[in-house]
């Protein structure tokens, strides 16, 4: 029964990770990449539990994988909250160059040459 549930959790985690990959590709928001990685790690953790008794789960190195998944999520959330400034001056200048509109004279675009 536990293996059955583990298998279901594995599959569900992988599918969720796939959705998050798709969201990342569509929005380019790093948070979704982090969620994709985290859920993939949780799925991988389930794979490793296959040869291990459920009572042994807590006492094996498998918890390290879960730790990495949590760290990835924490870093992503912190990263999202640190992005408090609007798109950087460098990126705006780059976009302006792409559209061939004149750059504002006070901005320094030379670093993109």
């Amino acid at each position, binding site marked *: 029964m536990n293996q059955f549930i583990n298998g279901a959790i594995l599959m569900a985690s992988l599918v969720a990770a796939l959705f998050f990959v798709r*969201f990342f590709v569509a*929005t380019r928001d790093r948070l979704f990449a982090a969620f994709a990685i985290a859920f993939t790690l949780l799925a991988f953790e389930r794979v490793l539990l296959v040869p291990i008794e459920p009572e042994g789960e807590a006492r094996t190195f498998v918890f390290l994988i879960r730790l990495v998944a949590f760290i990835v999520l924490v870093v992503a959330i912190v990263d999202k909250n640190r992005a408090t400034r609007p798109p950087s001056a460098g*990126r*705006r200048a780059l976009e302006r160059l792409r559209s061939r509109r004149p750059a504002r004279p006070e901005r320094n675009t030379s670093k993109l040459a």
Partner: protein
Amino acid sequence: MNDSGIPDRVKAFIRDCIDSIEQLEALLLLRRTPRRPWSADAVSAELRTNADSAGRRLADLARLRLLDVVPGPDGGEPRYVYHLDGAHDGVVADLDRAYAERRVTVVNLVIGKPLERVRTFADAFYFRSERPPRSGAAPDSAWEDEARG
């Protein structure tokens, strides 16, 4: 405040009520002929879409109380008429104007709804209450903002 020329209440209306371009065009079509009841077949012929799908869109609009349902002639298919004097009329008028003047922006607002829902997921992890700056590709409206200076 306005962003890319579309009033906020129009954006909110699109977010809450408009799920497809077909639905948008059906609503605006019926609004332009305010007292004329339309059947699904007539709307589908006018919009050049599938009749079943037109019927579903009209039913959705009726459920939102943007249209009124009137019984068809001789008990046939129901017909739909624009609901006059409703609270929504001002917003729909703005939407009509916006669709005429900034068609691509309005279309993108409708088409982009699922992706906007996804972005809301990411926004939830922003601790502060105000809307966070978007990471990733800049929206098209950024050009107009910069042009305005």
